[in-house]
């Protein structure tokens, strides 16, 4: 991920509300707490020395409870709120140093925004609302109308052009908000609690649609939310905020598996792990036998490991089938090769299958389920006990993610012969 271009780069950004900002900044640099600074200067810390990068075409989620400064932070990115200190680079240009005209141009061409309460203009039709960003740029009427209609089509609002915002439901109004942002065709999309005002079912639909749109548009999205489930669903990376400071940045997995401190831990403890953990997290090392070895080797191996069947793989570690102990014994007696006694009725899942979906398969399988990558390479096996243990919240059953994932995968396959 790191080799992707940095789209937004935030460096030491702080926002202090109140009069005595100089003193407060100084105290902040000395590492004083938010409450201590409030006591001494009367100034409130909105954002406390935030540092992060957002890479091209990722969904970067900023999450925190209300009052944690996430909405303030996202507003500093397009300077709806002026940061007190720090630098923000958009495509390498420092937006905090821009003149009014440059800033306006950046807002028009680079960054658009979707708001929690939709913020549509009640006196304009849906089409006129969608056109707004283009209209103020002085775009010709026909061109902007076509672009707005295209954007409305993208969000599934064809035919509503001439309605007024108050004639639409909340979900539809937010689609207009999204269409208005998309019509401008900016690289960066800021979404401030965009789905928080919607009811849960609509919210989930909107999340799915956003992911759908994102897969074809590849925008750089900064998404603000207070909802951890939402963050986990849509975020490529998540930044967790508390008291204006970012306490942890990482992929959803990293945040769940390795909470950096107690705050994050408490935040994530109620998460439904079965929707987050995947086969990769619970799979065990797969014992295998090369398919060109004799049945005697397979039998010997099973005896040694105390198992009744073993996966047979080729040189590229692609699964060829499963060898049962009974079949191997017969083969030894009758002189057959492993190829001839392979059982191909095994089941496979991919690494990123989530635990909830695994459970059905694992509970009915009589032999361990194979975990394969997209090329059919065997990466590990699922043992029923480990899956159930992980579902029950037993951390010992979950693979350690502090190591680089590629090494764990390799270690999980131990070649005996």
């Amino acid at each position, binding site marked *: 991920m790191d080799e992707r271009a940095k789209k937004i780069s935030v460096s030491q950004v702080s926002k202090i509300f109140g009069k005595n900002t100089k003193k407060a900044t100084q105290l902040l640099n000395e590492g004083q707490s938010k409450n201590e600074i409030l006591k001494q200067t009367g100034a409130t810390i909105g954002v406390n020395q935030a540092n992060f990068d957002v890479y091209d075409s990722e969904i970067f989620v900023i999450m925190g409870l209300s009052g944690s400064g996430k909405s303030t932070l996202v507003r500093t990115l397009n300077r*709806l709120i002026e940061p007190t200190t720090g630098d923000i680079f958009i495509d390498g240009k420092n937006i905090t140093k821009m003149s009014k005209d440059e800033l306006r141009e950046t807002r028009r061409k680079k960054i*658009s*925004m979707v708001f*929690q309460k939709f913020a549509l*203009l009640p006196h304009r039709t849906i089409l006129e609302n969608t056109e707004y*960003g283009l209209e103020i740029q002085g775009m010709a009427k026909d061109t902007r109308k076509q672009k707005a209609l295209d954007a409305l089509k993208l969000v599934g609002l064809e035919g509503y052009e001439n309605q007024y915002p108050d004639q639409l439901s909340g979900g539809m109004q937010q689609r207009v908000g999204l269409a208005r942002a998309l019509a401008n065709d900016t690289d960066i999309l*800021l979404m401030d609690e965009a789905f928080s005002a919607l009811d849960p079912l609509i919210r989930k639909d909107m999340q799915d649609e956003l992911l759908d749109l994102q897969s074809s548009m590849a925008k750089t999205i900064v998404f603000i939310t207070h909802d951890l489930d939402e963050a986990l669903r849509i975020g490529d990376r998540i930044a967790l905020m508390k008291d204006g400071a970012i306490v942890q940045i990482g992929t959803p997995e990293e945040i769940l598996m390795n909470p950096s401190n107690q705050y994050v831990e408490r935040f994530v403890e109620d998460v439904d792990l079965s929707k987050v953990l995947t086969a990769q997290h619970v799979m065990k090392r797969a014992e295998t036998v090369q398919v060109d070895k004799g049945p005697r080797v397979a039998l010997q191996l099973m005896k040694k490991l105390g198992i009744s069947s073993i996966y047979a793989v080729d040189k590229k570690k692609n699964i060829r089938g499963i060898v049962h102990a009974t079949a191997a014994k017969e083969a030894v007696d009758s002189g057959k090769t492993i190829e001839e006694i392979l059982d191909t009725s095994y089941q496979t899942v991919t690494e990123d299958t989530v635990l909830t979906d695994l459970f059905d398969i694992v509970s009915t399988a009589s032999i361990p389920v194979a975990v394969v990558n997209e090329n059919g390479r065997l990466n590990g096996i699922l043992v029923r006990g480990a899956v159930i243990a992980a579902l029950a919240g037993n951390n010992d059953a979950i693979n350690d993610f502090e190591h680089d994932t590629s090494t764990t995968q390799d270690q999980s396959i131990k070649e005996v012969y």
Partner: protein
Amino acid sequence: MEESFIPKIPVASWIDAFVDWLTVTFAIVFDGITIALEAIVNGMNTVLMVIPALILIIILALLAWKLASKGIALFTLIGLLLIQNLGYWEGMLQTLSLVLTSVIITVIIGLPIGVWASQKRTVQQIVTPILDFMQTMPAFVYLIPAIFFFSIGVVPGVVASVIFAVPPTIRLTILGIQQVPTDIIEATEAFGSTVKQRLLKVQLPLATPTIMAGINQSIMLSLSMVVIASMVGAPGLGADVYRAVTQIQIGTGFEAGLAIVVMAIILDRLTQNIGKKKN
């Protein structure tokens, strides 16, 4: 009686001196304003007088029907016919000319000041106490300098009406613009609007109902000034009321007063509904 420690501050003589100085120094300006205002009021009056009463009544009733409702159209029709029947038609037109002129000037002055004050906190902080002063100072007090500056007749009446009537337009323009939800303002900012675009495309359209309520209040206030304005020689229904009061003619006073009430109701309902229709 207690003796004051500090001798009386000569506020009255200061104001007298100031008004004298203004009268002399800005004589040309005041003369110009007088001529212009007189021309506007008289011009409007002449136009209204040229139209036959019956036709004007029908036009106004139709306007009421279109802007408001059938009921108000009917009220307009009957009310105006009554005024004409009682013989106050000419007086009503004079009053209407005075009120309309005052309101036009009120809007020309009030709207830009309101918009300006809504954008700049310091301007609002200066304007607000001045408005408080203008509204609480008894209206009669404006008449005295108005006579000095503009002599007697319809012009000091218009000026006094404007001073008295302009505060609600300014106040409600400020309120209407500041009431536009912050997230909508944020959205217009986030898409890169200029100040002018924000004002014309977002703030003013959304503030229109509130601004119209302010203008409606200004109309009512300037109508309430007509009797006071007649004391400095402004013609119209106010003069009829004033004459009736000084000659203790109860019946005539009531008739002229009734004509003012009918006018007030018609103007109020019409302008109220202009604001609502736009919403």
